[in-house]
């Protein structure tokens, strides 16, 4: 069994399959961008993209995602140089405070904009409604996603 994470393929042992995905990412792969905020799949801080769709890594076992492709926040940007437009928009709009929800929020927004490159603000709000943020009141997060949307129109 294998799992693809950010374009790299990892071998999974039989013992790995029971392991929670979030624990595997954070501890085995040291990909700590996905956070554990609630452990019950409600807060969205552990959001990663599974074959392009947002999922809660705290509620999945490795066995449930084996053979598929994952994208984490670490896989979104290149090693150096300018940030991708969505992340730059988060910075520019002031959409980041404590930053704990940010990786999950960015990934959810990325998946949403790929599908919906001309969103309304109401659609944006619905798209991120499963990602909790306690700092920002979401206003500047919605601003950021709206500002980044044109970059997803090809």
């Amino acid at each position, binding site marked *: 069994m294998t799992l693809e994470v950010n374009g790299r393929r990892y071998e999974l042992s039989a013992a790995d399959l029971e392991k929670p995905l979030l624990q595997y990412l*954070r501890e085995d792969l*040291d*990909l*700590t*961008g*996905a*956070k*554990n*905020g*609630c*452990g*019950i799949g*409600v*807060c969205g*801080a552990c959001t990663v993209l599974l074959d392009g769709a947002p999922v809660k890594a705290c509620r999945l076992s490795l066995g449930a995602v084996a053979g598929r492709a994952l994208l*984490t*926040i*670490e896989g*979104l*940007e290149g090693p150096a140089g300018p*940030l991708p437009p969505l*992340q730059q928009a*988060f*910075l*520019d*709009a*002031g959409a*980041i*405070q*404590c*930053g*704990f*929800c*940010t*990786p999950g929020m*960015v990934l959810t927004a990325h998946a949403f904009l790929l599908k919906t490159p001309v969103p309304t*603000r109401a659609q*944006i*709000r*619905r798209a*991120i*409604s*499963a*990602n*909790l*943020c*306690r*700092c*920002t*009141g*979401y*206003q*500047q*997060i*919605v*601003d*950021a996603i*709206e*500002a980044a949307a044109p970059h997803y129109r090809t």
Partner: protein
Amino acid sequence: MSTLKEPCWRNDGRAKVTGAARYTDDLKAPGMLHAVPVYTDYVHARLVAVHTDEARRQPGVAAVITARDAPGEVRFGQIIRDYRMLVDDKIRCHGDVVAVVAAGTRAEALAAARLVRVEAEPLPPLLDPEAALRPDAPLVHETHGSNVICTHHVRRGDVEEGFRESEFILEQDFATQFIEHAYLEPESGLAIPRDDGVMEIRGSMQHPYSTRRFTAALLGVPLTEVEVVGTPMGGGFGGKDDTAAIVCARAALAARVTGRPVKMTYDREWSVRESYKRHPYRVHYRMGVGRDGLIKAVQCRVVADGGAYCSVTPWVTWRSTVQCCGPYLVPHVHADIYGVYTNNVFTGAMRGFGSPQINFMIEQLVEMAAERLGLSLLEFRRRNMVRQGATTITGQVLDNHVVSLGHVLDTVVEKLGYEEKLQRCSRGRADGDELYGVGLAISYRGVSLGAEGVDFCSAIVNVQFDGSVLLDVAVHENGQGSEAAMVLILAGELGIPRERIRHRRANTSSIPDGGTTVASRGTVMGGGAVVLAAREVKRKMAAVAGECLGCAPEAIRFVDGRLEGPSGAMPFEQVIREMQQRKQYAYAIGVFQSPTVSWDEATGQGNAYFTWVYGCQGVEVAVSRKTGKVRLLGVVAAHDVGRAVNPALVLGQIYGGVAMGAGYALTEDVLMDGGRIASLNYDSYRIQRATDLPEITAVIVENPDSNSPSGAKSIGEPTNELMAPAVANAVYQATGRRYFRLPIRVEVDHDA
């Protein structure tokens, strides 16, 4: 669309948006153990014994630690040393910790923790603060001699005379709920015993120095032997002081006992169970109002549930005392405020700090008074609210800053279209299901600690020989963008690009204790210290530049990376090189001491705060007659911040405070069941989602304050003290009913 004139900047932005920022639980140390707490199911019980033998024998277990293993003091606290970092005598609430298990993996630690056996004799739990006040009530802390943590008073004028002058007296009871901070990141602490003998702490906390004090006390070592290093942290809102410090201290104790690094990361349920909450208040108000439309007298009795430990209850309730009449002129005041021990979860600092409760009440009372008088809601407020040169209920004359209450009120009234919308409110009648209402609330707020504490802070500006600058400030980056604000203030003072300045991570060994980053004091106190340090560095640099340029040092200006005199200029870097040649450092520590305040505990009179901020928030709601659900349609908030150092982040504070305030008004409630918290996670404790909130219009009002060297004042907390009354007033306009308990649960109209 965003209304920002220029893109936001924060020094930690890139790390946070790429996932590179390492929060405490993201860190690992070689040989690191994992520690977990051991709770009991008691709410109140005398501890007989903690049996750890079986747990110690489990695979991977390195230590099972109880109060007996602490070389120092398990009892600590910011005001009263009543908190047991590990229980040594009595279990006083459901969140009390009797032991800590450290093991090679978290799973091993968790498995062993289940085998710790506790012997205890149950005692009847004391859960009602009014019952706790009765003379025959059992004591939560026997040595304290009473369940009263603190009392505060205001005695101004003669309240009976005020009531005699009144046309009528409003009398009303109010009650508010326990509130969870709900920071996204649960507590985490990593303790590393260093080879120099120092215990290094990385942790999610908003007060490194408090963490150092708790840790040094538990380890029984001087403050120098503990070094707390700043680490990105996932939200605090006042909630990461005591409990967060205690988690770090326990990790340090486990590290001391085992000689290995120990990480202690809380899961959400432990965090909610153990961490302190916002105080529930029960208040009885009497407000006497004259025929002339003026408030004549206010009498109130406030009982705040402090839970099992004191924490900062005396300070929280003190702010409630000073602000117990809201931003209104009242000639006769008689207020009694009590903080009370119970066996509930303990309560302490939370964004607002004693004002959200009071404002919820006062801002409804003034509307009830206006309506009874037949005066408009705005006119009644305008007649009674503080204005330039006014004297507050504690005898403080508001003449050393711009009193902008009228301005923020007018701003919201205009931007919201309040007066026109008020005419359209349903008042319980509508054709369809939804009732419409609009409401607003105003407040003033004393800046920083006021007479509740000693208020000073330092900053170190250290220009390197290449002209780059290290900045160290004794306030903490809680996520609010404190470091970015400090850098921007310094860049402005030195006239250099912000990119030339590196804000050092907080380190308790590198700069004196600057007090906790609470009370919306970070920017005003830290920024003040930065300005003073910068002035001293500039004085030194100007002396050298003046000599080189042949002018008086006083004539030198710092602009665009240069030091300019009347007839010539030198690049900033060149002046630094010149100083190096002369064996001089461009280095200074700035210490900002808040201007003097005063307080008389017996009468509740004094200059409580050195300056004040003013805010107004208005909201439109739709209320479903069938379900009672309140939907927010729009919010306008205006706040005077003195000077907005980083406008995008000031707006962020307003939006975030509005959201949190909306939760306080409508959805958030820590459900208690016999002293046990029933809502332990986000599924049962409902904070606002993006779809719960409307578009928010935030207006920054700037009146730079001469009491603050940077001109900046406060914004974090004022934003979170107005939504509950604004929503309550809007719900009243929609339904025709007033709600005096939080959260507001609208009664369903079964005939609808």
